[in-house]
């Protein structure tokens, strides 16, 4: 058997590992450790794929996804497409502790977060705004549309469904292309 306790996390986000370990060492629960470790990455915007100021959507907005699961009670709290609140894992923990739901999403999840005392604030930064502007300047490439007009592999939207009978557009614009530069 391997030695316990154990903290593991994806990618070399060292500060997150350290924070989780410290939380355990000071008597925190595994849930506290997961929450504190992930919150470090939200604050530090770990490699731009966690937290505010990264991965703007087509409108230029950054939205956040997070979940936390208790392996003893099988209880879960999660938020999807959370808008305008930075501490997504903290909101997920509140969903777990103060509701019998599992997953809250979108604008209403923001209202729940505000009721739990979280600050409603802009998640964009100069960096995310620059990312979005550069994407618009590249005719919105890459994007996740297919079978639409205008041709999504060449133009920005707005898009409409391609009329029936017109030849199928290659659906692998971004799917399965091994694109490792944009991921969850």
């Amino acid at each position, binding site marked *: 058997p391997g030695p316990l306790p154990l903290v593991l996390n994806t990618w070399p986000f060292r500060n997150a590992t350290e924070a989780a370990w410290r939380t355990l060492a000071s008597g925190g629960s*595994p849930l506290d450790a997961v929450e504190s470790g992930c919150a470090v990455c939200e604050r530090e915007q770990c490699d731009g794929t966690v937290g505010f100021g990264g991965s703007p959507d087509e409108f230029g907005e950054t939205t956040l996804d997070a979940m936390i699961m208790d392996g003893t009670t099988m209880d879960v709290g999660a938020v999807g497409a959370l808008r305008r609140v930075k501490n997504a894992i903290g909101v997920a923990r509140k969903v777990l502790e103060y509701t019998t739901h599992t997953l809250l999403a979108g604008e209403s999840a923001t209202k729940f977060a505000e009721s739990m005392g979280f600050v409603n604030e802009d998640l964009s930064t100069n960096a995310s705004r620059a990312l979005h502007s550069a994407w618009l300047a590249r005719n919105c490439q890459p994007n996740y549309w297919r079978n639409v007009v205008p041709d999504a592999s060449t133009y920005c939207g707005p898009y409409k469904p391609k009329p029936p009978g017109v030849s199928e557009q290659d659906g692998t614009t971004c799917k399965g292309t091994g694109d490792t530069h944009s991921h969850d």
Partner: protein
Amino acid sequence: TIGMIVIHKTGHTAAGTSTNGLKFKIPGRVGDSPVPGSGAYADDTAGAAAATGDGDTLMRFLPSYQAVEYMRRGVDPTIACQKVISRIQKYFPKFFGAVLCANVTGNYGAACNKLPTFTQFSFMVYNSLKNQPTEEKVDCI
């Protein structure tokens, strides 16, 4: 995306994720990370797992749940992770993804899908044998 697994010395487990998702996503798009059983999964009676990568593909296979169920049957954590990656590979050979696995005795492993631009997956480990967080890497399969 950060996916995290914590196992207390008492054997209690927890897992979680946090991400800002896919760049230039269609507004309203939610990835695999907040989906229990996909982004992460924890069960004191079997272990815990977490995943990262192309969430639109990953979430269809519930990789974290599947890895924990393999470990529930006694499969070694590294093998459990590899079996999950292989399962997805069959349908989407070029998907981008990696999975972390740990069983309740503290053994752990990881696996990832090999791509020309992704041949190794690096992750962080801290346990009572180490006096600081340690980066480890696995070769992708």
